[in-house]
């Protein structure tokens, strides 16, 4: 698929595995799908807590500016990061949030899925909530196949955690599959305005 810039932002609290999820996403697109990718991040000096964001830009061409300009997709794993980083959206941009941790969203094109709750159910730990979210993100991303995302995940995480992470990823795929994207407006700009 020829794409100029497809931009994804992942955000949450430091320690939730936001950057790891972004790295796996970038490896799936860059190494397994063969696109040019650029993955950047910004976080505070603290090891846990604080706001954290990571961005992945995917393109068929060399990427000039490495950070996101206009988002196609965004993931928010808590309310603070949703408030802070939900900007620069394309009109048809899609926001994914953890429904257990985010209450208010600034766009009507938002997908609420209980990533942390799902993680607890399938793996018995909150730890893999980032991978559940990654599964959903990858499912909705038109540039990635589930197979390649799983391959990237398996190649990146420590061998002894592959099983639990794969389970989490599959749960993410499944949760996303059950969500009806057609229930959301196609664009946040009303159609009559979009004509102009």
């Amino acid at each position, binding site marked *: 698929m020829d794409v100029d810039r497809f931009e994804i932002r992942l955000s949450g609290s430091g320690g939730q595995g936001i950057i790891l999820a972004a*790295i796996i996403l*970038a*490896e799936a697109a*860059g*190494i397994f799908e063969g696109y*040019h*990718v*650029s*993955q*950047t*991040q*910004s*976080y*505070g*000096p603290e090891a846990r807590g604080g706001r954290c964001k990571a961005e992945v830009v995917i393109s068929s061409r060399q*990427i*000039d*500016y*490495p*950070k996101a*300009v206009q988002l196609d997709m965004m993931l928010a794993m808590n309310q603070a990061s949703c408030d802070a980083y939900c900007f620069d959206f394309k009109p048809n941009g899609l926001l994914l949030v953890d429904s257990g941790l985010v209450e208010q969203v600034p766009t009507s094109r938002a997908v609420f899925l209980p990533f942390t709750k799902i993680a607890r159910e399938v793996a018995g730990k909150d730890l893999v909530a980032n991978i559940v979210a990654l599964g959903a993100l990858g499912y909705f991303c038109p540039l990635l196949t589930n197979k390649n995302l799983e391959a990237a995940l398996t190649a990146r995480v420590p061998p002894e955690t592959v099983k639990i992470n794969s389970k989490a990823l599959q749960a993410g795929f499944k949760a996303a599959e059950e969500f009806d994207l057609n229930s959301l407006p196609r664009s946040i700009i009303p159609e009559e305005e979009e004509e102009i």
Partner: protein
Amino acid sequence: MNAIQTGEKRRMKHELNGKKFLLQGNEAMAEGAIAAGCRFFAGYPITPASEISERMSYRLPQVDGTFIQMEDEISSLGAVIGASLAGVKSMTATSGPGFSLMQENLGYACMTETPCVVVNVMRGGPSTGLPTSPAQGDVLQARWGTHGDHPVIVLSVSSVSECFSITVTAFNLSEKYRVPVVVLSDEVVAHSRETFTIPTADSIEVADRIVPNVPPEWYKPYEDNSRGVPPMAPMGDGYRHHVTGLAHDARGFPTERPDEIEAFSNRQFRKITNGFFEIQITKKLTVEDAEIVVIAYGSVARSARRAVAMARSQGIKAGLIQLVTLFPFPKNTVVNLMRQCKAVIVPEMNMGQISREVKRVNTGLTEVYKYNRIDGKLITPMEIFEEIQKI
């Protein structure tokens, strides 16, 4: 014998060349260093440069190199200079606060003409500043940080692939000219991950220092020659080699004779001036017919690239000079373009350290505008585009 064999096995197992990876700028720098033949690294961890040390700590043993974490940055550069004097290509990496501590030994490396590569991943400053945010505040410090009138080469990187290739260049220039080379990176370049295929060994040009071809008793470690770069004997192989930070004569011993000091100092500058043709590296984008030229370096050059493309798509004749070499300042390239263009814009994440250089070489040829941002955020393409539009 066994040690050599296991070393060989380790190398085979960890052959990375020709393979594609998602690498961070910092990781690519470590790989570039290893490809250039670096086999000694001494450092002290600091955000946002720690990943260079981290990768070196496990990659160097795989290629039979040595990694050591020192007690601070002063000793780090001290160890690097010592290893280099012993004939091993050496490197250290730090960020602003550590780079300040290294200034004394940087001068020692200049004075003793010891090749070494010092990476400074710039973060917000002064002092502890902004550990996880980018800045370009150390540009003039890299040039003038250590005391005394001294030659030094300062390079800058803007992408993961440059982190690899420019690190190789840094080692080559350092070895060829017997001068410390400072590589300036910044938090954005250092922490960005991009797909990168590590080149095969035969496609990488590697330069080694010239060793003496005279018998040990004839060797004068600081004797002038046509290149102004004396051959360098590794310590411990029988060649007399006195090393001092004092001004010294051709044998390396302290001197106060003005004629010897002047000859020594002039040679320091002459060797760099002679090499301008290969030291001053720039990259150009659509400058042939450009009326507005953006001069940028480091991560800002990436924003500028997009801004120039945006301007071109709007019919504005814009171009970009990306400075890879910051010092010695690539005056000829910049002045040649100044003759043809209406205006030059210099966006930087400082209050104008390179725009000062640009203005210095301008001499009324064109208008020079600076654009500065010092809030710890990368300048965006839109900001530069708006500056282009204003003119």
